[in-house]
């Protein structure tokens, strides 16, 4: 492979690789954005699960929104046994769910801090298992935890750069607030990433909704500019590359 050829990371999502020239560019940061209930967490975990099972790439899941127990239970529903991957050393789950914090109350925040603690926690796991894939689910939770948005924006740039520097592909999830038209609560999520995938679950009639997926940007790739049908099946998320979403 020449220095200018892009090495692709298979997403583990059937149908998605066909829309993006074979996979995400290795070592890039990819944002998966969507409103509540669009399948962001399933996609993120599927990326890690099949990354380990099919492509032998260890992964790290950093969970800020849901406790690991709930994630493992929900993913078992799609025949993805995360526990077995943890036992094999192919997956590390970093539990940063708010209820586990030892300090019950954070009474103050001065605008003079960084996220080097979070970076140290993540990199510790990345180095331990030689992770090639990292998921942070979800970035948006930090917006509610800290008031100093300017600092967070700068720190996110540093954090994502440091995680991907050694070749790991980073997938961030970002929740789009219900009435919002942007891509997250910080307004900068899309700039952090070299790729942006948006998930939809639009109401198409009084009695039904339609799921779809859009690759909004992917630097260095000729990606589809259409909005494609997507479904959540018993094996997780599946994309139909030849099917254009009826809701758009």
């Amino acid at each position, binding site marked *: 492979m020449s220095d200018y050829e892009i090495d692709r990371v298979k997403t583990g999502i059937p149908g998605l690789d066909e829309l993006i020239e074979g996979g995400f560019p290795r070592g890039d940061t990819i944002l998966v954005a969507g409103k509540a209930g669009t399948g962001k967490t399933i996609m993120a975990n599927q990326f890690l699960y099949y990354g380990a099972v099919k492509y032998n790439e260890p992964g790290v899941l950093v969970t800020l929104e849901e406790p690991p127990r709930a994630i493992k239970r929900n993913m078992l529903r799609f025949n993805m046994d995360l526990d077995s991957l943890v036992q094999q050393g192919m997956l590390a789950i*970093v*539990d*940063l769910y*708010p209820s*586990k*914090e*030892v*300090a*019950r*109350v*954070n*009474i*103050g*925040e*001065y*605008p*003079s*801090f*960084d*996220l*080097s*603690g*979070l970076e*140290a*926690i993540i*990199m*510790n796991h990345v180095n331990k298992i030689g992770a090639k894939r990292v998921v942070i689910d979800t970035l948006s939770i930090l917006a509610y935890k*800290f008031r100093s948005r300017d600092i967070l924006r700068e720190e996110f740039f540093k954090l994502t750069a440091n995680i991907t520097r050694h070749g790991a592909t980073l997938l961030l999830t970002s929740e789009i607030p219900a009435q919002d038209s942007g891509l997250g609560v910080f307004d900068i999520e899309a700039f952090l990433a070299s790729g942006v995938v948006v998930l939809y679950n639009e109401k198409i009639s009084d009695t039904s909704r339609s799921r779809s997926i859009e690759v909004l940007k992917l630097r260095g790739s000729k990606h589809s500019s259409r909005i494609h049908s997507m479904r959540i099946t018993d094996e997780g998320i599946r994309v139909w590359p030849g099917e254009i979403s009826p809701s758009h």
Partner: protein
Amino acid sequence: MDKAAGSNVSDKHTDDTIVDIVFFKSDTCAFCPRAEEVLRETIQDFGPSAFNLSIVNVSQNPEAAEEYGVFALPTIMIGGISVTGIPEPEMLMKMILGCKIAKKRGSRQ
């Protein structure tokens, strides 16, 4: 966890008046040295036996940061309360006094 003054947090004192303080820092955190100075200056007037001060360098001990759920630095934890960033001495004093009052109430019950 480094023992900085008095005894280590894990080595529990039986004296209910002693306040446990944990200071989280990292090798790359630019604000941490100043926060540590403010902390040490604030507690020095109380005398060395008033506190158990433990320093956690998360660059060397990331497991401790994960265990405590601390990822923004500097963070100072006093009792069950924490503050992030370079704190004002007045804020630290309030946290210390609040902790002492809570301990006194706890020992009376």
